[in-house]
């Protein structure tokens, strides 16, 4: 069990993301709200991303045993998580995420075919950082409007996830250091901060209603 800490942290990330995703899908099935649908996609993606990385570490520990996780698996997991962060930011009505100029669109897409998976991982991490920072700021602004205390916890959670992504991206400067584990721990702290207000939502009388759309 060379990657015990990474295994545990990714598993926690998978479970917390899954729990929030399930809450969101119950909400979507009961109300048909598009916002809850976007949150469902967001948290299932985040959960799946952690699961892919966890599966990669498990395969490395028990099957491959080369001493290093396959970079492609890690990049895939982080890419899937980035999709989740995009949907959180998208729920806050991102209006100018994609550049309108055809030139900038081509510049934005073509480098992905020219760089290695390790560099793609850094691109995903930096995009995730921007999306999460945006989500944290928007959530904090909504707190100032509505004074909903749960929004503070979610804003802190998104900010911690952003900081974790930043440290994860920075860890490529010191590849074998503790920085990656610190980044993972901060990200899990962020997910738990997201889960705290969600866990207080009473679901006892909520049930799936197949007739609602």
């Amino acid at each position, binding site marked *: 069990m060379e990657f015990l800490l990474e295994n545990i942290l990714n598993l926690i990330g998978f479970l917390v993301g899954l729990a929030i995703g399930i809450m*969101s899908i119950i*909400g979507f099935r*009961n109300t048909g*709200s598009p*916002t809850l649908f976007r*949150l469902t996609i967001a948290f299932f993606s985040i959960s799946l991303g952690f699961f892919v990385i966890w599966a990669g570490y498990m395969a490395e520990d028990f099957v491959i045993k080369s001493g290093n996780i396959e970079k492609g698996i890690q990049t895939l997991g982080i890419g899937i998580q980035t999709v989740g962060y995009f949907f959180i930011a998208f*729920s806050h009505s991102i209006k100018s995420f994609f550049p309108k100029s055809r030139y900038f669109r081509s510049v934005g897409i073509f480098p992905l075919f020219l760089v290695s998976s390790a560099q793609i991982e850094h691109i995903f991490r930096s995009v995730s950082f921007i999306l999460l920072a945006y989500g944290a700021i928007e*959530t904090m602004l*909504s707190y100032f409007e509505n004074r909903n205390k749960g929004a503070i916890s979610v804003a802190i959670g998104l900010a911690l996830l952003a900081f974790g992504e930043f440290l994860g991206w920075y860890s490529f400067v010191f590849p074998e250091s503790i920085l990656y584990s610190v980044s993972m721990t901060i990200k899990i702290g962020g997910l738990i901060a997201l889960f705290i207000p969600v866990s207080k939502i009473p679901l006892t009388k909520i049930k799936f209603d197949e007739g609602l759309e």
Partner: protein
Amino acid sequence: MAEYRTHMKIIGDILATTRDDLRDEDGATVTYLIRKANISHSRISRILKTLVSQGLLEQVDSQGSNKYRISTSGREFLQAYYTFTNFANNFGLSI
């Protein structure tokens, strides 16, 4: 400045009006709902038709006029609506 209401919020307001504001078991008239929900007649007519077809409101024929009252499913929906409004508010979002 007037607050922007989502379609979901308007539905929540209509159901809450039929549940909380009425002591009359016969239900609410369209005029009463228009005043309370603050939307046009054509729009509320479409929404009421949908809510009745979904079983969230019951249409009652009372003394020649159509009235609407909340059904059991409607009460359950309203409870879910409030619960998940709170859930979404935690993310700084509205449903």
